[in-house]
């Protein structure tokens, strides 16, 4: 402050233009914009759930939980989404490995195919499933001849859930497998391990956080599946009427049942996603420190 500054007019080097204040991030503006956006986003996402929770009470929940409609739907949802998740892992893991480790001409087609259920309207997916596996469908006829019926059966529910949930597993699992450092794969090879041993002892454990994340996402997706199920498998209580379908039906007849089912679904989905987020980094194994070079 007290330093004698040269007169800018006499200076040989022109003084710097006053850019400094403009370059500084306008902190208040950013806060204002983010704050203004945060409020409606939180409101939009949280208010419906809040309304749902306010509409219910412990007494209502406990009272209606034992009703056959609720209980049946709950049991069916739990069983089908558990089976669907198992199928998704069994089928999705090899495909994720293939996508992560190999490349071939036309790989992109498979990638798009795998992603498609994420963006396809579920009713379209259900309709397409019906065209393929329905009684008069492309392969449904042959399946029927073998005594296998999918539409309007519990197995059909699982098929619809698997169809819709697969991309939610394959995406993260593939990223996890591709993210396994090649150094470890090569170290395994020089330690005389076969490809199979390398997969199960090195790649799989190292990719496990991503694989579990994918499994959780696909389980949550299967649990919430509605459109494809109702189109492909119908809405038969005890056989194909999962919780989302029961909610839809109860809306027209028994609002309290709809509330109870919705709250249950909300709590289960919230729990799954919260579990996924709260798993501490490196809870399965700790990453080696980044190469000290």
């Amino acid at each position, binding site marked *: 402050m007290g330093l004698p500054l040269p007169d800018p007019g006499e200076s040989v080097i022109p003084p710097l233009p006053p850019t400094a204040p403009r370059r500084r991030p306008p902190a208040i503006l950013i806060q204002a914009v983010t704050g203004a956006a945060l409020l409606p986003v939180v409101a939009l996402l949280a208010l419906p759930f809040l309304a749902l929770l306010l509409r219910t009470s412990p007494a209502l929940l406990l009272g209606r939980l034992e009703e056959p409609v609720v209980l049946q739907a709950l049991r069916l949802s739990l069983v089908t989404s558990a089976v669907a998740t198992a199928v998704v892992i069994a089928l999705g893991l090899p495909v994720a490995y293939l996508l992560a480790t190999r490349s071939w001409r036309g790989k992109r087609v498979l990638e798009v195919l795998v992603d498609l259920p994420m963006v396809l309207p579920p009713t379209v997916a259900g309709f397409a499933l019906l065209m393929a596996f329905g009684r008069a469908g492309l392969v449904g006829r042959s399946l029927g001849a073998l005594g296998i019926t999918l539409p309007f059966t519990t197995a059909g529910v699982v098929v619809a859930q698997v169809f819709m949930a697969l991309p939610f597993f394959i995406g993260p699992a593939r990223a996890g497998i591709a993210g396994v*450092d090649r*150094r*470890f794969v*090569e*170290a*395994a*090879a*020089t*330690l*005389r*391990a*076969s490809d199979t*041993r390398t997969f199960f*002892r*090195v790649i799989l*454990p*190292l990719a496990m956080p991503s694989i579990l994340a994918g499994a959780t996402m696909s389980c949550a997706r299967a649990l919430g599946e509605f459109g494809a199920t109702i189109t492909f498998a119908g809405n038969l209580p005890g056989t194909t009427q999962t919780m989302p379908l029961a909610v839809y039906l109860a809306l027209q007849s028994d609002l309290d049942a709809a509330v109870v089912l919705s709250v249950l679904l909300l709590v289960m989905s919230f729990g799954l996603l919260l579990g996924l987020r709260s798993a501490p980094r490196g809870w*399965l*194994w*700790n*990453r*080696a*420190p980044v*190469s*000290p*070079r």
Partner: protein
Amino acid sequence: MLRFRLASRLGSFSLEIEGSVEERSVLVLVGESGSGKTMVLRLLAGLMRPLRGVIVTDGGVWFDGESGTFLPARDRPVGYVAQDYALFPHLSVAENVAFGLKALGAARREIGGRVHRALERLDAAPLAARRPHELSGGQQQRVALARALVLEPELLLLDEPLSALDVQARRSVRGELRRLLTSLPCATVYVTHNPTEALVFGDTIAVLESGRISQSGTRGDLMRKPRSAFAAEFLGLNLLRGTVIGRERSGLVRVSVRGGELFVPHVEGEGEVTMTVHPREITLALERPAGSARNVFEGEIEEIVPEPPAGELVRISVATSPPLVAEVTRESVEALGLGPGRRVHASFKAAAVSVQ
């Protein structure tokens, strides 16, 4: 004995080299980064397939470009220690070391003992239950060596084994590693960019420059007749090993070497030291010099070799004890009338000795 002749290509980089290593000896490949050192190791390990060439051991053919024979990494009795060690982060130290034994189908009851002995040999037995992220760089290196050596490989490949360590750890680990390598029954290929490591570890040193070996030979060969400027400057050094025996009031340190005593500048600690003296620091004289040089040795000239690139300088090997090589100008050779068989005094100042 491992013999190899390899040609490979990676983008626009091409590699063409030839070499061999005996059991119980170390071949050091020294070169700057980008010279293709790691590629050679990957080719020898079977992680990369060469374009042409052969890799033959006493045990059999690992690669033959002509016949198409190619053993992949998992079928080669090779121990490979990567630059950053690549310990499996999800396995404990003991599980890391057991990994290869299990892959080879060793009997379950045998594994525990072999793992323990391998770790013990590297002073790493107390680390058995730890995870890699809980280890220091030096400890990680020992575990990686144990993991490779427990399989009793015919060939050990080390990629810059000291470069991931900090400067302090490097000196002590270097000593341990040297003792370990001299005790191993297998052939070792050691890759480094550091000329001192090359001199310390290499029974044979091959200088790798842009995918070609510009010179290969013993330390003595490189010292007496370096064939490139790089070899002359960094590898053709007088290497002396000795033990600290005392300290002068001036701060100089007395070191006993095979055949005599040396004065060297200040060194930390006691015990064994490795020292280098560049040949240009060594003065040759017919009479015993009276000046400030503290280190004087007398001997007969063995050989005089012109030095690249221009041959203005020559390297003179003198059969002193310890043997020394001096670098002098052609004029002084003529002025002093130096030639093989001539008795000379080789001298250098204490300050010319760099303690490694």
